[in-house]
C-alpha cells in the first residue's frame, strides 16, 4: 500500500524530518497491508460498533459550580496575557 506521507503529515499538522519520512512511510505501508486482511470478511450485513455500552445522549443538569481550574490552567500555559492564552500572529502582514 502506497500512501502520500506529505499529504497525511499536512493533515496531522506534523513537520517530519527528511530522515524519518522514509521510515514512517514504509512502516505505514506495511501496517496498512497488514490491516487489509480484514477485506476477506464479509461485513455487508454488520452494524459498526462505535461504543460498547450502547448508551446514548447522556445528560446532566447544567449547574454552575465553583472552580479555580481556569486560573490554574493559565498559570502553567506557555504564554498568556490577562485571562487569555497568547499565540503568535495568525495572519502575517
Amino acid at each position, binding site marked *: 500500500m502506497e*500512501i502520500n*506521507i506529505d499529504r*497525511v*503529515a499536512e*493533515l*496531522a*499538522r*506534523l*513537520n*517530519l*524530518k527528511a530522515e*524519518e519520512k522514509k521510515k*514512517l512511510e514504509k*512502516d*505505514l505501508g*506495511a*501496517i*496498512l497491508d*497488514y*490491516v487489509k*486482511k*480484514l*477485506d476477506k*470478511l464479509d*461485513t455487508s450485513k*454488520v*452494524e*459498526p*460498533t*462505535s*461504543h*460498547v*455500552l450502547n*448508551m446514548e445522549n*447522556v445528560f*446532566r443538569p447544567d449547574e454552575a459550580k465553583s*472552580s*479555580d*481550574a*481556569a486560573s*490554574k*490552567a493559565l*498559570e*502553567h*500555559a*506557555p*504564554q498568556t496575557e490577562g485571562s487569555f*492564552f497568547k*499565540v*503568535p*500572529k*495568525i495572519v*502575517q502582514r
Partner: protein
Amino acid sequence: MNTPLHKLTVKEAIGFCQKGGAQELVHALTERAQKLNPLVNAFLRFSASDINLPLTAERLPLAGVPVSIKDNICIDGREVTCASKILAKHVPPYNATVIEKLKSAGATLFGQCNMDEFAFGSSCETSAFGPCKNPWDLTRVPGGSSGGSAASVAADMTLAALGSDTGGSIRQPAALCGVVGVKPTYGRVSRYGLIAFGSSFDQIGPITKTVEDAAILLNVLSGHDPKDSTSASQSVPDFTQALKRDVKGLKIGLPKEYFIEGIDPQIEKSVREAAEIYKKLGAEIKTISLSHTEHSVAVYYIVAVAEASSNLGRFDGVEYGLRVPTKDLREMYFETRDQGFGQEAKRRILLGTFVLSAGYYEAYYLKGQKVRTLIRQDFEKAFKEVDVILSPTSPTAAFKIGEKSADPIAMYLSDIFTIPANLAGIPAMSVPCGFTSGGLPIGLQLMARPFDESTMLRAAYAFEQETGIYKKKPKLD
C-alpha cells in the same frame, strides 16, 4: 516486626498503617526506590514530599497506604508527562476522579510511573525519559504501556499502582513482571482526568501483588461518575466478598484460537496446566471458539489509532506543555508537534489521520468498526456457554530491550491476546501462573462477562491461593 515493610501487601499494610505506621512505610519505600529506581527506571518522579497524609487517614479504608500512579493520570498541582516531551512541565489544574477516590479512601500518592509515550507501546521503550527495565532481568522490557507501574510493584518499590489499559497495557506488563493486573469492564471506572488515548477502549485499573489487593483497590476506584459520560451506572459490589477458594461447577472456556503458532510452547504448557488445576478444583473446562480473534490486532490498529490521532490533536502548543517559538501560529503547530512527539506517537497519529481521511474512511475505519462488532458477538456467544475464559496474557515472556522496537507489527502482535477484551469492553485480568525455564514470569489471562469482575476475581483468587506462585520475587538486593 518480621516482614520487611516493602514486602507487605496492601491488605497487610492497611493493618500496619491503622496502627500509625504509614510514615514509616512510605519512608521504607522511598529508601528502596532511591536504591533501585536508578536500575529499573520505573518511577519518573518520586520524593519524600509525596507523603501527604491527612491526620485522619488511619481511620479511612486505605489508612495511608502508598499507591503509585501511571504518569497519564492527572494529579492537581503535580507535573504529568505521559512520558512525552510535548507535555514536559505540564501541571494539571484538577484531580482525576480516581485520584479523588484514592485520596478520599486515605491513600498516599507515592511516585509517578514510567510508561510508553502516550501509552503507545508494549515495552515501555517509547518513553521520552528512557526505558523502564524488567525487575526479573534488567536487560529485558517490563511490557507496556504501564511498564513502570508493573515494574515498581514487582520490585517492591511500591505496594500497588494504577495503570491504564487500551489494548492490554495493564495486563501484558503485569504478566511480564509477575504481578496481578486488572482491566475492569469499560465504564466501570471513571476516565475523567486520564489523558485520553483511545476513548472507546481506555480503562484505569490496579496493578498489585495479590488478587485480594486488586479487589480492595477496585472497591475504591469503581463507580459512576457524572464527570465521565461513558461511565456506567451499574451498582458496584464489594469485590473482596467474591474472594472464595471455590470454583466448583464454574464453567471455564479455553478458546482454541488463542493457542496458535507463534506462542512460546512454555507459555502454552503453563496455561494448559492452569486449566488442569481448575479442573482438579472442580471447574468444568470446555474448548470454545472465538473465531474472529486473528483480526483483533488489525481492528485495533485502525480504530484505536483513529481515536488517538483525534485525541492528540489538542497538543498544539497553545494551552499547555511544550511550545516551540515560531513567527506564525500555523508553523507553531507543526514545529511543536514535530519536536514534541516521539516516533511511535507520530506513527500512530499519521496512521489514524490516514484511516479517517476522505476517501479511506469507509475502507478502513468503518470496516474496522464492523469487524469490532463481529469480535463482540464472538464473546457474547461464548459467554452463553462459559462463565470465564482462560488464555495466555502474552504470547511470549519478557523480550530483550531493542528486540522488537524496529518492527512495529511484531510489537503490535504482542498484544494479540489482550486486545479482544478491549474491543468487546469486557473485564479481563492477568495473574501469575508460572515461570519459563529462564526464570521469567508467565501470566494467565481471565476474561468474564461485562460487569462480572466478581466471578473473574474469584477464579483468579482460587488459582492464586492454590498455587502460591505469586510468592516468588525477583532478586534485586
